C-alpha cells in the first residue's frame, strides 16, 4: 500500500519570552494506508503539536506534511478545510463536542459541511453503532464522559475519513470506560480500513498499535513496528 501521510523535517517553534521554544524539530516519517500508529512520549514532548500539524490545524515552522501526496502548505484554506472535513477524522481527549448541539447534530456537522446527502440518517446510524441510538437528542452536558467520547468517535468517522487522528482518546475516562472506548475505536477503524494515528501515554493502548513512534523533546527517538 502507498503512503497516505508523509512528514519531512517537520519543526515547530513558538515565541517564548525573548527567544523561541522549539516544540518539534526535524520530525520525519511516513504512514502507509491502513496503518495504525501510536505516538508516545512524556508530557511536553510535542505529541499533540505533531498531531495538530499533521492535520493542518496549524502551520509548521519548518518542513512539510503531505497527505495523500498533497503538501498542506501549498493548498489554500478552502481545500485544506475540505481535506480535513472529508479525509480526516478527529477524536480529542476532552471530546470537543459543540456544547449547544445535540449528539445527532454534532455528528451531522462534518457531513453537512462536506455536503453529504442524507446526513441525518448517516448520523443516526453511526450513533446507533456506538451504542447511543437512544441519546440522539441529548446535549453534551447531559451525557457521561464515555458517552461524549463515543459521540466524538461517531462524529470523527461520519465522513468516512481515510485518516483518523485521536489525541489521548481515553485520557479523560476511567479504566473500564477507556478500555471499552479503545475497543470500539479499533473495531470501527478496522472495519472501515482507515489509517489511524493516535497519541497516548498509556502503554496498554500504545501496545495495540501496529507501529509506535516515540518522541522526546520534540524529536523522534524511536520508530518501532510490532513484530
Amino acid at each position, binding site marked *: 500500500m502507498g503512503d497516505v501521510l508523509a512528514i519531512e523535517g517537520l519543526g515547530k517553534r513558538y515565541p517564548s519570552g525573548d527567544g523561541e521554544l522549539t516544540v518539534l524539530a526535524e520530525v520525519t516519517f511516513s504512514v502507509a494506508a491502513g496503518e495504525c500508529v501510536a505516538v508516545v512520549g512524556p508530557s511536553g514532548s510535542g505529541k499533540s*503539536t505533531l498531531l*495538530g*500539524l499533521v*492535520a493542518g*490545524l*496549524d*502551520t509548521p515552522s519548518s518542513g512539510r506534511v503531505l497527505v*495523500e*501526496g*498533497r503538501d498542506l502548505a501549498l493548498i489554500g*484554506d*478552502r*481545500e485544506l*478545510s*475540505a*481535506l*480535513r*472535513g*472529508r*479525509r480526516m477524522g*478527529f477524536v*480529542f481527549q476532552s471530546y*470537543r*463536542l*459543540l*456544547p*449547544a*448541539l445535540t449528539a445527532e*447534530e454534532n455528528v451531522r*456537522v*462534518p457531513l*453537512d*459541511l*462536506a*455536503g*453529504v*446527502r*442524507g446526513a441525518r440518517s*448517516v448520523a443516526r446510524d453511526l450513533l446507533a453503532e456506538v451504542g447511543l441510538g437512544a441519546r440522539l437528542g441529548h*446535549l453534551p452536558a447531559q451525557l457521561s464522559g464515555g458517552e461524549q467520547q463515543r459521540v466524538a468517535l461517531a*462524529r470523527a468517522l461520519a*465522513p*468516512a475519513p481515510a485518516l483518523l487522528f485521536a489525541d489521548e482518546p481515553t485520557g479523560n475516562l476511567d479504566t473500564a470506560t477507556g478500555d471499552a472506548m479503545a475497543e470500539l475505536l479499533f473495531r470501527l477503524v478496522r472495519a472501515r480500513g482507515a489509517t489511524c494515528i493516535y497519541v497516548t501515554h498509556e502503554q496498554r493502548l500504545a501496545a495495540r498499535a501496529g507501529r509506535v513512534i516515540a518522541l522526546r523533546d520534540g524529536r523522534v527517538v524511536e520508530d518501532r513496528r510490532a513484530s
Partner: protein
Amino acid sequence: MSGPPTVAEDAAPDGPRAPAGRGVVLRLYARLAWWLLRGQGAKVWILLACVALGVAGRVCVGTFMARFGEALARESRSMLGGDLELSANHPFTVEELAAVDTALPAGARRVRYVSLVTMAAANGRARPVDLRAVEPGYPLAGAVVLSAGSMTELDGPAPAVAVGADLLRQLEVAPGAHIAIGHIEARIVGTILAEPGVSPLAFGPRVLLGRAQLDAAGIAGSGSRLRHALQVVLVDPTAAEAVASALRQALKLPARDKNALDLGPNAAALTVRTSRDVQSQLAGMIDRFADFLRLVSLIALLLGGIGVASLVRGLIHDQLESIATLRVLGGTRATVLAVFLLQALGIGVVGGLVGALAGEGLQALLAMLAAGALPVTIAPGFDPGATALGVALGAAVAVLAAALPIAAIAPASPLAILRGAVPAGGARWPVLLIGLTGALACAGLAAYETHSLVLGPGAILVLALAAGLIAGGGVLLRRPLLIAGRALEALRAPFALRHGLANLGRGTHRPVAALTAIGLAALLFGTLLVYRAALLAEFDPPSRAGITSLFVIDLQDDQVDEARSLLAARGLPAVDISPLVKARLRAVGTEDAARGPARTREEERGRFMRGREQNLSWRATLGEDEHVVAGTWMEPVGTQLEASLEERFAKRIGARLGEKLRLDVQGVEVEATVTSLRRVSWTSFRPNFFILVSPLALAGAPATWVAAVPDLEPAAKQAVQADLTRAFPNVTVFDVQQMVHHILDLVERIATAVRFIALFALAAGLAVLTGMALASARARRADAALLAVLGARRGTVVAALLVEFAALGAIAAALGAALATGSGWLLVSGFFGMGHFAVPWLQLVGLVAVVAALCAVTGVLACRQVLTAKPLTVLREA
C-alpha cells in the same frame, strides 16, 4: 500520468456526497448559526434588546412623521378652509378679481377674509390676537365649533366675536362680555372649541370677527400686517392643482417651482396656495424639527451597535472552542465568517422587528408629547415603511457591529485556540476596512437623517471623539481606583466598598464598552441639559434687568411723536423707536436671490433667508446691543448706499463684505454695498434688524415704526399696553415676557419629545451594561463562591456588586457630563449661535447620580444568578 485526486474530485463519485448549491450551503450555515446561538441564553436576549432599543426610537420618529403626513393629507383642505386660497398683502384689485373669475371653473364657491395681528382689550388689559375678519360662509371647508351661539351672529349689525379660550382667561372676561378691538366694542358670542388651521406658532389667541366690522374697527391701516384672502371650494377638488395653475397664469404669477422652498402665505405680495401646498409647507416645518429626533434616535442606534459589538465579542470568546472544532471538522474561515455573520444578521432582523413594533406602539406617546406643537391631531397607526426601515437598520447595525470581532477571529489557528490561546486579532486591512465602512455609514446616515452636512456628521464626529475620550478616561481611571481601594483598606473601609472598587479597577470584566455606552447616553442627556440651561439663561428675566417689556409694531409716521408723548407721560422718556421698511432681496452680488440649491438644511435656510420679506431699517449710530465685527460702520449722511448685515444672516445668504445687495424696496430697486457685519444680541428684544441700510436707500419709501418699551412693573406694563391699544387701534403691542413664555413653552415641548427619544439611548446603554454583567456572570459566580467559602455573607456580595456598578455608572456619567459641557457649548454657541452659555452644574450632578443608581440596580439584577448559586455547585463546576 494522473496526479493525486483533489478533494473536489474524490468528493462526489464514491460517496453519498454531492456538490452543494448555494442554497444548500446557506441553509447549512443558517442551521449552524442557529445551533450555536441557541445555547447562549440570556446573552441573545440582551443582543436583541440592544438592537431593538436602537431601532425603536427611529421607527417611533418615522411612524410619527408618517402619521403626521397622513393627518396633514386628511386635514390640509380644512386647514386651508377650501381647495385653494388666493392671498395678498393688499385689498384685491378689480383686475385680480376679474382674473379669478376667469380662471375659476363653474360652480366654484368662494369666501373672503382678512387676517391680521391686532390688539383686543377689556378690563384695563390688552392682548395681541390673531384676528380673522370673515365673510358669511367662512370657512368653506371644515367647520368652526363654538361653545355657544353660532357663526351667523358675527354677521349681524352689532359687532360680535368668537374668541379662543385663552383670551377669556387673559382678559378675565366671559362669553356675553364685550372686548375692544380698535374702535369697536364687540360682544363675545362664544369660545372657539375647534377651528381648522390654527397655527401653534401664532402669537395670540384666535378672534373671529364679521368682515363688515373691520373698517369700523379702524385696525386695517396702511401699516398693519394684514393679508386679504379668498378661499375657494371647487366642485371637483381633484382639479385644485390645475385651477391653481390657471389662476397663477391669469394673475401673471410665476408657475410654482416644485423645488422651491414654500415660504408660506406671507411670502409674497400675491400668492395662490392649494391644500397640497399647505401640506408640504407644514410637513417641511415639522420635518426640520424631526431632524433632531432622528439624530438622537441614530445615537441610540449607535449605542445599540456598541452593545452588539461588545456582546458579539463576548459570544465569540465563549464559542472559541466551537469555532476551532468547526474548523477541525472541515469548516473554512469563510464558514466561520458566514456562520457568525448570519447569527448577527438574524439578531439584527429579529431585534429590528421587535424594535420596530415597539417604536410603532410608542409613537402614540411621542405624538402626545409633541401635541401642543402640532397643527393637526395624529391618529395612532402602523407604518410598514418605518418598520421595514427599522428592520433594515437593525440588520445593518448588527452585521456591521459584529463584523469587527468576527473578522478578528476567523483567521486564527484552530490548534492555538484548542490549546487555550485567545487570538490577538486578525489582519489589519479587514479591520480597517470594516472600521472605515462603519464610520462612513454613520456619517452618511447622520447627514441623510438630518439633511445637513454640518449637524449630522458633526454630531457623529463629536460622538466618536467623546467615545474615545470616555473609553480612554475609563482605562486611565483604573489605576486611581486601585489606589483608592488600597487607601480605603488602610482606612479600614467596608470590604464591599474596597472589593467593588478594586473589581472595577482591575477591569477583569471588560467594562469599557458599557462605560462608553453609558457615558455617551449621559453625554446626550447632559448636552440637552446644557442647551436648556443656555436657553433659560438667554431668556432669564433676572439677567435681563432693564430689558424691553413691550414691543410695539405698526406705528405710523404720524403716530410716532404722539406715542413718544404718551410714553413720556407714563414716565418713559427714552423709548427706542426705529423705522421699518418692507423690501425683498433680489440679488446678492451677481447671484439671483430666489435661486440656489436647497438640498441641505443649510442651503434651505439660506434660500429661505434670501426669499423672505426683509425688514430694512436705518440708524445713525449702532445700538447698545450690537457691535461691528467686520468692516466699518456706515456713514449715515454719505452719498454711497451702504448696508450693514447681521453676521449670521450674512453667512446664510452668502454675502461678504464689499458685495452688492440688490433690494426691491416696494417697487424701487436699490443697490447697497455691504460695508459692515454686526453681532446682535437678539434677546434684548430691542428693535434690531438683519439689514441696516443708509437712510438714503429708503428715502420716500413708506415706513412703519417699531418701539421697544423698557422694563416695567407688571401693573404699569398692563396699563401702558392698554393705553397704547386705546390710542393707536392699528398697532400691536406684544408683551415680551408672554412671547418668551410662548417660545419657551414650544421649545420645551420639542425638548420633551427629544428627551423621550434620548431615553432609548439610555436604555441601550443599560442593555450594554446588562450584557457586560451577563458576560462576566461565570467569573463572578466563582468569585462569589470563593468569598462565601471565606466567610462573606450574601449581603456583602450584593453590596460589592452595587458599589462596582454604581461606580461604573458614576464614572461614565461624570465623563459624559463633563464632555456635555463641551458638546453643549458647540451646539449652543456654534450651531444655534446663542449669546448665553450656562453649565447647569446641579442638574449634571443629578444626572450622574441618577445614572449611577440605574447602573447599580441594572447590574445587580443582571448578576442575580451570582447570588442564587450554591457555592459548592460553583466550585465543582470550576
